[in-house]
């Protein structure tokens, strides 16, 4: 069967190129810590080596593959757009997500910067609606652009009254 994505055009803006580095760093750090712990356990507990060995091997290969493939794949997928009526973002890699939220239903707009993001001058834009199923997140935006967009969104959303449920 032919590959069939859904009938939405991609959002207008790509995320920053630096985001590739961010995702690679995050993945390398995460898998590095995990592999370190497992390797430590492997060295300390002789009796557990028989079953820790395979887990360690699989984990290491998996981590390497993810760290190499995921950031570029994500960069190809991740896009975002803000219009007068809605926020639209595409994220993911193996599992892709297209998310649209009407401006009139937005409750809060945040920019979040973790330590790695700060070092790379990046930020994650987080748009929360009244749903308990989590905000729309756009990671890998330039910090200044994210702040600008957040301020702009805050301005637009203030025009609509009510509790946005």
């Amino acid at each position: 069967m032919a590959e069939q994505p859904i009938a939405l055009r991609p959002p207008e803006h790509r995320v920053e190129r630096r985001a590739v580095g961010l995702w690679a760093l995050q993945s390398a750090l995460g898998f590095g810590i995990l592999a370190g712990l497992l390797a430590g356990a492997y060295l300390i507990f002789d009796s557990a080596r028989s079953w820790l060995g395979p887990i360690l091997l699989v984990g290491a290969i998996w981590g390497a593959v993810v760290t190499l493939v995921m950031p570029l794949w994500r960069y190809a997928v991740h896009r975002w757009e803000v219009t007068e009526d809605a926020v639209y973002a595409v994220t993911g890699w193996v599992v892709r997500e297209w998310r649209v939220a009407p401006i009139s239903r937005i409750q809060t707009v945040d920019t979040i910067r973790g330590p790695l993001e700060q070092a790379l001058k990046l930020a994650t834009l987080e748009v929360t609606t009244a749903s308990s199923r989590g905000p729309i997140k756009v990671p890998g935006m330039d910090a200044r652009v994210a702040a600008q967009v957040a301020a702009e969104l805050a301005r637009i959303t203030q025009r609509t009254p009510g509790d946005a449920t």
Partner: protein
Amino acid sequence: MSTEPLDEVPWQRLDTRVVWVDSAKTVLSMVPAGVAIAFFDAEISWGTMGPILVATGVGVLGGLADLLRWVKTRYRITDEYVERRTGLLVRQHRSIRRDRIRSVDTSAKFRHRLTGLRVITVGAGQHSAAGEAALTLDAVRVETAQRLRQELLPGGPAERSAEPEVVAEAAPVPRDEQVFARLERSWVVYNMFSFWAFLMAAGLLWGTYWALQLFGLDPAGFVRGLADWDAIGTASTVVVAVATVGVIGVVGLAINFFTENWRFVLARVPGDRGTVLRTTQGLFKTREVNRDDNRLRGVQIDEPLLWRWMGMADTTVISTGLSIWSLTPSAQILPRGPVSVARRVAARVLETGQSPLDRSLRPHPRRALRRRVGWALIATAIVTGLLAWLTTLIDAMPDGVWLAGLGLLPITLALAVVAYRSLGHTVADGYLVTRSGAWSRSTAALQSRAVVGVTFRQSLLQRRLGLATVQVTTAAGYGAYEAIDVDSAEAVDLADRAVPGLLTAFRSTAPAAAPAADPAPVEAQARP
């Protein structure tokens, strides 16, 4: 929010009778220990008396803590807020804006009913679906409770009556209360048979055994003397034991059902501002839950797989600000009962011509079954692989164990088919209806105007199969409802019909089948 001087509204205490109830509770908790010592010459040692002393201690401390709570709790209702201050070491000040209040429940334990007290729970806030606690007043007099409910729920002063939703829903206000359902005795059948029967019976028996032993009786010996167990044989003994426990559990659940749902009534009751959906139930502990109809966003019916042959169903309303994660969720509007009743009630609750839940749903493409069969194969393979791996590691495990993993295959395949068959969706009368689930098939009808966002999800495999999952997010109920594995070519059309206008600007330039919706009605639709 402006913090105007609101001090002219005095702070009020909880009812003084709470003190007497607490004192009585404290005294009562000492009774078992006292009786055991006074009448049964129980030896006062840690071994025999330990548990009962702990129970007494907990009871006394609980009573004292409750007294302190009474001393330290104040509440007041201003024009804009309901406020409560409480706490000895950690001072807590909780305030809820009155126009955010979604429900006012009153409940009463047996001790409250004896003394004419009621516990009031004020539900509010968008995040209560995520488990945020509401404001509870434990306890006030019946009259106060009724007054507070009247004051807080039906007609607060600062209402947003200019909004279209209120106008639209206030129009068909009935003159008097409409009763949708009353308890029917036959429903007990749906609530008697459950795995919980065994747990409940086990708990009951253990408690009885422990209590009897405490008073110097010998329940184990009594049971041993009932029959010549050696002659009956181990297997039969086990059968008898399981059957006995089962019967006790079933009877227990039946009694529990009646005490909980005694005089159950579901009715739509008029108020100053629209209507509320009210359930009242309970024999010893009565419970009354009022659900603001302006917060109603839809209805969901769940049918557990193992009981689908007898048409068992749970009915809940999808509403903003109602808890769905507690053991007695206030979103549940009917006791577990026959699905025919559930559908009838759902139709009347939603007040649409034909209930959206009764509409025939569109099946999902056959390729969705392939995905489920894939999961079934993978799950079986993983279990089999793990078992095989474990047998190589652990010597004590017999070699053929991994075959048991293969034995799972028929079950997982059957579940895959069941899961595929329950998939379905439709859009009708301003409702998006979705159905899915293997163990429990749940059908949810959600109002289009309640949608606060749309998500499409597609994994690599879904992309290959030409499938996509359409999810609409909302402030009500579970926060999101999804049509899983629809034809990816139709995904956007489906979402567009469910939420007209939102996606128009983002559709791909390929010629759309339907004419683009006029963006003008979006404004009217978007605000509840």
